[in-house]
């Protein structure tokens, strides 16, 4: 803390500064060592030349990257309309599963079945079944679009997970909050809306951020039923250039989006941990 005025440092500060310098040196040294090993040993592998040419080809990358970016817009679009739908359906399922009144019993069964089914089936299977199955009914345009039914498959699957997270958030609100709100004369519905849900949603924001990141990646699964999004586009280029570099380009584009998002989710998570303590 007091690096500038070394004379005024306490014993403790001197010791900590020494420790900090020491660990920084060790970290730097070990990082350099690992990088050096990679740079020296990987190219020594027998297939390195070929791999370099087919995965890390600069010419192919510069040629395909702008088109890949264009295709990524499709991913962003699918993500943009799926995410709000997931939030709404997920919250609805969570509330349905927590419904206590006997009249709403069918809703509870529906919620439980929904989460069991869509958490139990691989996403890609849901995408296939809904994405090929429903347009197979012979619906007229535009209702046979794989965009619609592919997105629906994502929405259904992700809602099941998101609902469970919302439910854990609702359970995380201490029962004394309910007691306090009820004691003031609020109805169950008002307690839920004004007291429980605002706290529950706040508690699960970091976890839901992780779901958003996963969703952004899983949008690519729609490529299997038609939409030319980034993964599909990379596949087209792969065939065209007989080179895998477009896949690396696609991975880079994903990372540009997901790394900041992941960092942000981690930051939110860490902040929440601090606040709870």
């Amino acid at each position: 803390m007091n690096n500038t005025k070394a004379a005024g440092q306490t014993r403790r500060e001197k010791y900590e500064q020494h420790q900090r310098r020491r660990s920084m040196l060790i970290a730097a040294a070990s990082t350099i060592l690992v990088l050096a090993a990679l740079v020296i040993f990987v190219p020594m592998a027998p297939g390195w030349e070929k791999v370099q040419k087919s995965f890390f080809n600069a010419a192919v990358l510069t040629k395909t990257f702008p088109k890949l970016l264009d295709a990524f817009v499709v991913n962003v679009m699918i993500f943009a309309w799926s995410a709000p739908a997931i939030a709404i359906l997920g919250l609805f399922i969570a509330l349905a599963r927590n419904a206590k009144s006997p009249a709403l019993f069918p809703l509870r069964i529906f919620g439980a079945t929904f989460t069991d089914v869509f958490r139990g089936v691989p996403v890609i299977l849901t995408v296939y079944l809904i994405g090929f199955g429903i347009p197979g009914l012979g619906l007229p345009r535009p209702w046979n679009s794989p965009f619609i039914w592919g997105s629906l498959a994502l929405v259904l699957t992700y809602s099941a997970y998101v609902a469970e997270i919302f439910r854990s958030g609702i359970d995380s609100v201490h029962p004394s909050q309910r007691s306090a709100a009820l004691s003031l004369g609020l109805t169950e519905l008002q307690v839920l809306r004004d007291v429980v849900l605002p706290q529950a949603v706040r508690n699960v924001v970091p976890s839901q951020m992780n779901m958003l990141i996963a969703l952004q990646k899983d949008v690519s699964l729609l490529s299997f039923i038609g939409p030319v999004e980034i993964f599909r586009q990379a596949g087209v280029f792969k065939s065209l250039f007989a080179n895998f570099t477009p896949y690396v380009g696609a991975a880079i584009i994903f990372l540009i989006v997901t790394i900041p998002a992941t960092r942000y989710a981690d930051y939110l998570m860490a902040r929440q941990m601090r606040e709870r303590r």
Partner: protein
Amino acid sequence: MPKLKLNNVVKRFGENTVCSGVNLVVDQGQMVCLIGASGAGKSTLLRCINLLEPIEDGEIFIDGEDISIPGRNPQDVRARIGMVFQNFNLFPHMTALENAMLAPRRVRKLSKSQLQPEIENLFERFELADRMHNYPDQLSGGQQQRVAIVRALAMKPEVMLFDEITSALDPQLVGEVLDVLLQLKNQGMTMVLATHEMQFARQAADKVCFLKNGKIIEEGPPDQIFEAPKQVETQNFLARALK
């Protein structure tokens, strides 16, 4: 007619009988203190009065009206009975003012602007005006508990229930909360307290009830209970509590 009357109130949690036939009469403007060891049933009794816990048997009357009829809509009863809890239970996502406004807005169906003068008045009366726009985690324990009292008073209750409201406070913060209770007593509020503050009960209560195993073993004016308890259980409890 008594303001609040409990007639043979029984409350069970499964096999466990927490209140086994409690009779209690509280007159208008009285302060009644429930004392007894932890687990004697004081808190549960308060929760029953507010209908937060349904009772197995017996009746609870307010102004002679039976509020404990099974299936009766509890909201309007709770709106007439204020309750303050040991751990404050303020809503952490709302400011002190919003905490106090929520129930009047939802239950009394008044708008924020209609309520503003009345609620601000309450905050001023309890010396919290400068804390109104703070969130609960920005307030001391004593302030939080006073806000919780203001929140309950905002519903203009006829009876107030206090569930060991100083037990979670640092000793130096207890005084400011007890002062609020005295202020309310002087204004004629009908109050029932579950408390471990024996000195306070002795000085301020109109009636003290000693509970053990879900029953009122002995009740009477504080002087009688604290100076000359008749029952052996009361004597034993007080010998330990006042040590």
